[in-house]
């Protein structure tokens, strides 16, 4: 198993080394939203992966919870400049969800309940870099933080970690998402400070 609480691997770097350029540390967990908080009943929740060949793989809430679980501890970086260290999550690795999905796609478009979308290269979802999380800090994930389940892809700015995630569309061509079509960077690497278009 590759991913075991990366925050606890080896010697902890000091907080300064973990702060990307232009960021400051917070202890609270600010809520940013682009719309009303969707309320998704668990008996109607589903997560889907749609391939570029038109195949769809679906998981109900019970099927999703039955998948192997991981508990990553990660630092998260919001484009509005706050960084929160050592956040603890529970969820399913995208490596597990995409294991039996046949695809040659290079891009992924994440879509959410409520209509939010965000795009990233498919390879950024693989190799222990991303999870669909349903618990935060030992508790069920609250709706205002994206519950029942949200994407966690901590190596990119946090707008890529879509709340209320509903599925992933695998695509041969890149398709910019909600903030990526309104001035924000298409990739969003906090260590290269890719906040806006052209950064």
């Amino acid at each position, binding site marked *: 198993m590759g991913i075991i609480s990366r925050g606890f691997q080896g010697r902890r770097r000091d907080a300064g080394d973990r702060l990307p350029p232009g960021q400051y540390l917070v202890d609270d967990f600010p809520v*940013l*939203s*682009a719309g*009303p*908080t969707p309320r998704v009943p668990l008996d109607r929740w589903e997560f889907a992966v749609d391939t570029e060949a038109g195949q769809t793989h679906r998981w109900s809430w019970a099927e999703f919870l039955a998948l192997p679980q991981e508990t990553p501890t990660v630092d998260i970086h919001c484009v*509005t400049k706050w960084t929160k260290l050592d956040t603890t999550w529970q969820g399913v690795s995208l490596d597990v969800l995409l294991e039996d999905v046949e695809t040659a796609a290079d891009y992924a478009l994440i879509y959410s309940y409520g*209509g939010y979308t965000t795009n990233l290269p498919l390879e950024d979802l693989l190799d222990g870099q991303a999870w669909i999380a349903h618990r935060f800090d030992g508790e069920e994930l609250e709706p205002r933080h994206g519950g029942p389940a949200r994407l966690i892809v901590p190596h990119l700015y946090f707008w890529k970690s879509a709340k209320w995630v509903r599925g992933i569309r695998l695509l041969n061509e890149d398709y910019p998402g909600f*903030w990526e079509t309104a001035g*924000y960077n298409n990739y969003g690497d906090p260590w290269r400070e890719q906040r806006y278009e052209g950064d």
Partner: protein
Amino acid sequence: MTAEHLDGNALAGPLGEIFAVDVTSATGRCAHCGLTGPVASLLVYGPDPGLVGRCPGCEEVVLRVVRGPGAAWLDLRGTVSLRVNLPD
């Protein structure tokens, strides 16, 4: 959850940087449901990462404004038209 969003007048400052007229008093038509009303009646979410104005009828996105360093981005895809009253 009525306190989740801001008043439509929150758009006045950022839009005032872009337009010479006060756009919050302009009449817009929602591209999704056709509802017509002043921009100030939109349900506004934000201000960060950007202002999102949603239709009070159908909650779809009517306009978005992102203010970055040295630039602003305005997305009006959700707006059919804006009627701005002007002197003859």
